[in-house]
């Protein structure tokens, strides 16, 4: 199974096609900020976003963002609070602050957010 650490260490990229984002690790997503939209409801009836875990990847649908490259500007990123599937999500130590930076050709640069960037869980 692909973990967050492994994806970061190997500098794996994510993908985006329209509203769909594919991450090269398997994780639960607790919070997302895209543009000025704060999303914490990932239930199937949510109109903000929905995510699903597969064997080797996780996919998210940001329903309101058909062109992520357009919605996320040059110095902005999509910010996520994620927890590896195998970790205990009730332990805050396991919560990871991840940024997704859309670059060309449907690819997303994935990195851990540094302390300079403000992202409140």
């Amino acid at each position, binding site marked *: 199974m692909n973990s967050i650490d492994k994806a970061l260490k190997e500098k794996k990229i994510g993908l985006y096609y329209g509203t769909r984002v594919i991450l090269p690790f398997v994780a639960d997503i607790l919070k997302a*900020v895209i543009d000025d*939209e704060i999303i914490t409801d990932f239930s199937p009836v949510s109109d903000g976003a929905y995510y699903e875990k597969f064997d080797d990847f996780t996919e998210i649908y940001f329903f309101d963002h058909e062109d992520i490259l357009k919605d996320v*500007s*040059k110095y*902005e*990123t999509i910010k996520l609070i994620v927890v590896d599937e195998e970790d205990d999500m009730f332990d805050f130590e396991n919560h990871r602050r991840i940024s997704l930076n859309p670059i060309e050709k449907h690819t997303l640069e994935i990195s851990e957010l540094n302390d300079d960037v*403000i*992202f409140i*869980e």
Partner: protein
Amino acid sequence: MKKTFLYSIFVLLTQLPTNLLAASGEVHTLPDTFMVIPFVILLLMIATGPLFYHHFWEHHYPKVAIFLGLITITYYLAVLHDTHSLLHTLAEYLSFIALLASLFVASGGILIKVDKKSTPMLNVIILFIGAVIANIIGTTGASMLLIRPFIKINRKRIKAYQVIFFIFLVSNIGGALTPIGDPPLFLGFLRGIEFFWFIGHIWYIWLPTIILLLAIFYVIDSRNMPEDSDEYSGKIEFKGLKNIGYLIIVLISVFLDPAVMSWVPSLSPLPFGIREIIMFSVVYFAYKGADEEILKANEFDFEPIKEVAFLFIGIFATMIPALQLIAYEAQVLGEQLNQGIFYWATGILSGFLDNAPTYLNFLSAAMGKFGFDINNANEVHQLSIDYPIYLSAISVAAVFFGAMTYIGNGPNFMVKSICERSGIKMPSFFAYLIKFAIPILIPIFIIVWLVFFNGG
């Protein structure tokens, strides 16, 4: 007394006039009262859009603002044949957005890192410093400079109320002591009020108001202290200091107005001047020359200023009829108005309209009440000497009440937008008004009225 007071406010806000002597002294045909409808629709949509039809609003607010603005513009062109009001408003809008954009971009290239433990007292100190600095670099400059470090310091216990007190103190009330602090006072300065008049006549209202708000904040903030065992170095670090230079250029350029310095060339009939050209140049050079690492750390994005720019195109255009109707009423009723009515009328309208023209209209009414002409700088100066209480009431109300809503002052919206991009859930337009502004600010504003403006 109370009945007369309420009646005067009511009449001021609702009576239907037929002609207008505008604050500028030029005679215009008054717009039909129905022409305030686009403005009311825009206000309602700003209030309800993010709540009830978020997706539509998110994608279409620029079109909505421009469409509603065009209704008013078309009416003025086709029905009233009044291009003067439109050009005047365009000039005010360009000034407004040039100042906001230049301060926004210049401060976006500055990174302040503070590695200190968040405590209620530290927050009180930051908010107080912010309120003071607002008088030196404007409420917009102070807000943009301090909001990110304020969030970072409080990142482990940040709540919406902390940001809202920031909006109250730094983005609005703080800036009541100098003409640089808030645009309405600058308009007063341009009309002939001495630069230091404001600090001399408002500090004793400003200081207790600030202390009272800080005391309330301290009590609330003391209840929000989760355990924090982290160690802090106490270091404060500044990056992007060259952008301080750009901020200084913007502040100096504020005075580059032919009305202040006669040697400054006027570009009339163009709806902008040297000042706006300098400010827009700062936008370009501050952005192009900024350190990429700082822009990334600040997650710099033009969206907050774009949002303000579009919404305020609509607000500036659609509020022309509302302001002209108010100006007329203020002139007609000037004789009956005492300082308390000036205070409340200026304040209530400044919470929902742009406070700069509202200020000018009530200043004009106060001038008329005492037989002065607002277009004569010596007479404006004379009013500030002979009847300072009226000028205080209008100045205090225009600045203080800007904190009542997100649209009361330019930086309010920008602070909200920056916070949301940082993951902080901010209250809706109504929740801000009902849960915070009315219960916290209105009692304080009543005290200010009772203590300082309840006579005459």
